[in-house]
């Protein structure tokens, strides 16, 4: 059962919510650093400005890749909020991310290429954990359908506590937060210039930013699934998880890509095996 309303609501409202989250994110980060910080609506001003700038692209294919990134991210999110198949959602998410990498590779710039390589490493790092999270939800609810998972009467987080922690771990990578912001970052501390977004400017960069808002809302929706038994607790949990990510972001320095890769695979393997084994021996499966 696919709910068109959920998909349409996601397409229309997600950029507004995502932009507001980004604004609140910057404000809270600033307060954590003892600064006043920009206005809450700053991300909208930024994107508005980017669309006012000159249209410069490194080559024609770059624009195609960015638009594909945008479209497939919306497809992934809309399918998720419509209650579709979780596996298809994850594949569409990966495909969207791959288009961003291709866009970065299409420009002949060493900075852009390093960013693209590091983005690929990030995808490799987080992908197993996302799949394990989906498998864990399937094991408990016997369905890959987001609609069925969301209407499961018991709190999923009680069955999948380790997988939930593992998912929070890779959420830091997906939200581009320190210490795992190895391919690009929202902060000024950018050693490899701007990583994967180096060669994008003006409207194309604006589109990447809007896509990231969609992605944030979709990922927080994924976190919500763990608490879907009660909407109120779910929303509080999502807010707390995001605050925790902000705290980690502001309290840690960026690590090397080797650590990102090894630690996220190790954690995915441990939490995945342990959590699923416990479920098996408890007789849930």
């Amino acid at each position, binding site marked *: 059962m696919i709910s068109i309303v959920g998909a349409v609501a996601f397409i229309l409202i997600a950029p507004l919510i995502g932009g507001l989250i980004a604004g609140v994110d910057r404000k809270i980060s600033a307060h954590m650093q003892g600064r006043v910080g920009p206005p809450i609506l*700053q991300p909208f001003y930024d994107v508005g400005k980017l669309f006012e700038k*000159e249209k410069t692209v490194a080559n024609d294919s770059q624009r195609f890749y960015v638009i594909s990134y945008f479209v497939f991210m919306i497809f992934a999110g809309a399918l998720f909020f419509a209650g579709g198949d979780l596996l298809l959602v994850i594949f569409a998410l990966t495909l969207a991310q791959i288009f961003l990498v291709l866009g970065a590779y299409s420009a002949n710039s060493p900075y852009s290429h390093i960013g693209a390589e590091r983005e690929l490493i990030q995808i490799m790092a987080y992908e197993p954990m996302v799949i394990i999270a989906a498998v864990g939800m399937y094991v408990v609810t016997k369905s890959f359908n987001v609609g069925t998972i969301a209407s499961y009467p018991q709190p999923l987080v009680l069955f999948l506590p380790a997988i939930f922690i593992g998912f929070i771990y890779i959420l830091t990578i997906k939200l581009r937060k320190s210490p795992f912001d190895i391919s690009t970052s929202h902060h000024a501390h950018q050693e490899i210039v701007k990583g994967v977004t180096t060669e994008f400017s003006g409207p194309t960069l604006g589109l990447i930013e809007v896509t990231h808002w969609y992605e944030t809302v979709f990922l927080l929706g994924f976190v919500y699934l763990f608490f879907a038994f009660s909407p109120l607790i779910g929303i509080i949990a999502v807010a707390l998880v995001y605050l925790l990510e902000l705290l980690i972001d502001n309290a840690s320095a960026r690590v090397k890509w080797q650590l990102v890769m090894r630690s996220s695979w190790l954690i995915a393997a441990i939490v995945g095996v342990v959590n699923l084994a416990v479920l098996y021996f408890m007789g849930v499966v």
Partner: protein
Amino acid sequence: MTYLSKSPWILHYDATSCNGCDIEVLACLTPMYDVERFGIINTGNPKHADIFVITGSVNEQNREVVRNLYEQIPNPKVVVAVGICATSGGVFRECYNVAGGIDKIIPVDVYVPGCAARPESIIDGIVTALGILEGKRNAQKSGATEQRVELQQEGEAQ
């Protein structure tokens, strides 16, 4: 309605400065001054920048770099020369190896004198630059090409 002046992103480049002005530029980002209040971000990537903040008197080594960075910034853009070396060459003006001011290489919109320029005056210079940025955008919208605006400014500088 315009967003340009609400979200100016800065590219900061040191063209043979003694680092005094650079430290003052970075001081603007600290909690004491916090220019992010105005949406100002230090980008480090010319393709994302709107304002080119440049310090130093420009020697033979970085003449081309300055021009290259300027050309990579998408229009509309403004250039702010920070410190007395950037505005006129300062005490290095007579040296054989310096251009003596950013305006010898690229058109400059705002001059912020001082040795080193204080953070307050740098912020003042950038706020002035925002007005010019708006003007350039309107000129661009009303049909006049950015190049024409630049040529005009080059003429004025000379």
